């Protein structure tokens, strides 16, 4: 299974994530921030379905990661997985805190990114996907968020969730199958 590297938008500097032996912890953290800021936000926003809360949780996650940057142990996984683990805990804490309000939380806002000139077929498909996404449970939605919005590889996803890589792949496949069936039914 292939992984992929992404970079947060609007980040001008171009340091790589992989540090050399002499790179200090701050430089490593800064590089991690540049590559993962938008991914972490996307993951948290999909999980919480609340952009404002997602911003707070994302900020808190990076601040915690900064405070704990010296405790990072590469032998226990890559930095992205470590960062998403911190973000996940912060997001789940937020969910716990807002449990009574969870029922009132709305679907993600329309970000207005929908292409203006896409065809009707694509628009229908997009609507079907959104509907199917809204029908997913929080756990399933988290899989989608980690995989497609956080940009994690299956190995990183497995480390964040605490399962094996093959199990993580199976979880992704099941969610995709569920979404595909839901989209087809909608169509």
């Amino acid at each position, binding site marked *: 299974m292939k*992984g992929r590297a992404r970079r947060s938008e609007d980040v001008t500097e171009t340091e790589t994530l992989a540090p050399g032996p002499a790179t200090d912890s701050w430089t490593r953290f800064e590089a991690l921030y540049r590559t993962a800021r938008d991914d972490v936000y996307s993951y948290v926003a999909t999980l919480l379905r609340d952009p404002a809360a997602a911003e707070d*949780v994302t900020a808190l996650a990076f601040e915690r990661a900064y405070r704990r940057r010296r405790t990072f142990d590469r032998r226990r996984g890559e930095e992205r997985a470590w960062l998403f683990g911190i973000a996940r805990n912060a997001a789940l804490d937020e969910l716990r805190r807002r449990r009574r309000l969870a029922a009132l939380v709305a679907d993600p806002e329309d970000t207005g990114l929908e292409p203006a000139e896409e065809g009707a077929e694509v628009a229908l498909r997009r609507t079907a996907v959104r509907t199917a996404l809204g029908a997913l449970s929080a756990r399933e939605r988290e899989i989608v968020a980690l995989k497609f919005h956080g940009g994690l590889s299956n190995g990183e996803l497995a480390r964040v969730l605490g399962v094996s890589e093959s199990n993580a792949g199976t979880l992704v496949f099941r969610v995709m199958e569920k979404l595909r069936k839901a989209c087809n039914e909608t169509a």
Partner: protein
Amino acid sequence: MRRLDDTPIDPEIEACLDAIDATLAGEPVDPRHAELAELALLLADERPRPSAAFAAEMDARVARRFAAAPAPASSRGGGWTRPQRMFWSLGVAGGFVAALVVVVVVIGSLGSGTSSMSSSSLPTLGPVHGASAGAASTSSSGSGGSSSGSASASSAASSGESGNLDASPSSTATRSVAPPANGRKVVQSAELDLSAAPNRVDSVAQEVFNVVGTAGGIVDSSQVTQTGGLDGSASFQLRLPSASLGQTMSRLSDLPGARVVSRTDNSTDVNATYLSTQHALADAQTLRKALLGRLAAATTTTEIDSLKQQLSDAESKISAEQAALRGLNSKINYSRVTLVINAGQTAAPVHHSSGGFTIGHAAHVASRVLVVAAGVGLIALAVLVPLALVAALLAWAAYSLRRRRREHALDVA
């Protein structure tokens, strides 16, 4: 979320996952996975993006290294500020130091108590230092009376609790109890019970012979049984010059590799007996002299025979009194000493401070300090290890509980 078994992934599923990854990476995929690829792209397009304002704010906070940026109020609660962390760190460190001080004080007090107990119960040790050695020492004197002094080790101590087989004898010498030197005739005797390491009984016995020989004493009888075990023993019947009895007894009590288990000094005043024997001898000699005078003047056979008979009786009495006097002198001049050596463990000597600072004393103190420090460390470990285990257990339980609550929050979301 149910944790799945870590079984090998199905090839078909793996192919689908590869297609998804390829799609997200912008690579072509197999046409049979076109629907999946389209779905993956649509999902990726649904990705929420942060606002420009948020991105700028985050960049600024990171540039400040979160220095002046407090955590969001809605999500705060898990972290401590630096002063709080410092406060708790200092509190924990202070508590640990206080606990250590308490342990040291308690150990110190226990240690001093043990020391005083051991000094009073240690065998012999310096035995007859008045009453401090725990020895029962009594003495009485008077005409025709007898006196005795004894120093004995406690039975517990005589078993050699410390197990030092090479105990230095220098401190185990007993002080001799001698009758006053006022010219009276006194018969002295002593009993000395020594303990030596099982493999040192014969060497200690040899030392006894050496000391007795040096002192001009006599070994009336001896029996040495060397087995190498705890049943080894030696016994001696000695006669030692009374004039140097105290000195010799001190040397016998001071034998290398042995320690005094008990010592008994006896004395009997025989002055009256001695004087009466002397008087009887003098009377008999006077009578003999008178009889010889009368015999020289005797004229009849009957008178001569009677005087000779009386003279014979007088001479017999003189011989008897002289023998009695020699016996008394022998007893007075040579004291009988019964010495027994039993195999056993010798106790560690108590080094009585000589008042000066010596290397040996310093080494002793240093070793004592090390022993106490090791003891303190051991007790601290005994206290801290269970506490650490309990703390680790609590931390693990808290972690598990928090994790379960988090997962539950995801389930009910």
